């Protein structure tokens, strides 16, 4: 079955939430799916975020549901996170921190890459 890598590069907003909806559907279809948070996409991850304070639906709950749907491979581009002051202590989700080479390998390894 064709594998998909969801590449999230944008900050938290409806667009990211709608990407997560598609990830959940990939999970329902048992499609091998993984996620790479890169650039401003890493801003989805901090556990301390509170979307309600800016009148926005919180994405953290949806991201937390991914594993239940079989989307278990969440990757964070470490340099993107570091550049935004986000470290492992800020993230409650089970994620893998990857460097440039591994991020590149993920992009090349997936049959389909879906951006946000």
């Amino acid at each position, binding site marked *: 079955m064709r594998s998909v890598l969801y590449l999230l590069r944008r900050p938290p907003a409806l667009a990211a939430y709608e990407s997560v909806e*598609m990830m959940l*559907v990939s999970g329902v279809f048992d499609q091998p799916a993984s996620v790479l948070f890169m650039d401003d996409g890493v801003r989805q991850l901090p556990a301390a975020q509170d979307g309600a304070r800016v009148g926005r639906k919180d994405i953290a709950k949806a991201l937390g549901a991914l594993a239940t749907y079989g989307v278990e491979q969440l990757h964070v581009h470490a340099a993107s996170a570091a550049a935004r002051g986000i470290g492992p202590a800020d993230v409650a989700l089970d994620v893998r921190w990857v460097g440039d080479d591994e991020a590149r390998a993920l992009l090349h390894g997936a049959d389909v890459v879906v951006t*946000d």
Partner: protein
Amino acid sequence: MRISLLILGAPLTTDAPAQALRFARAAVAAGHRVHRAFFHKDAVAIANRYVSLPGDEVDIAALWLEFAQRHDVEATVCVAAGARRGVVDEGEAARAGRRGATLREGFRIAGLGEMVGAMLESDRTVTFGA
């Protein structure tokens, strides 16, 4: 090769639907088959039948529909993204307690499952982001 397209960018403020159409035309010209075009996120605005453009502006929706019809391509619009942005068929309008469809004729409302299905059924899937 069988190709599906995922189009995310809005028709007026991004080049995504126009770029996807140029790509689709080139793909067909090169002998490939475009299986499904799936409009998601802000791209669903392309299917709003109440859009009324000044005469000197390009109606990208009309160009897409003409291409889709000529080459038997499914032009589908995400049901959830459409509902959020007021692009609904009769059924979705009724479900939301509204009257009247806003979906332009020629487009079809579909669930995200159809996009994931297209990914699985196609040799290539190309995303046109915002």
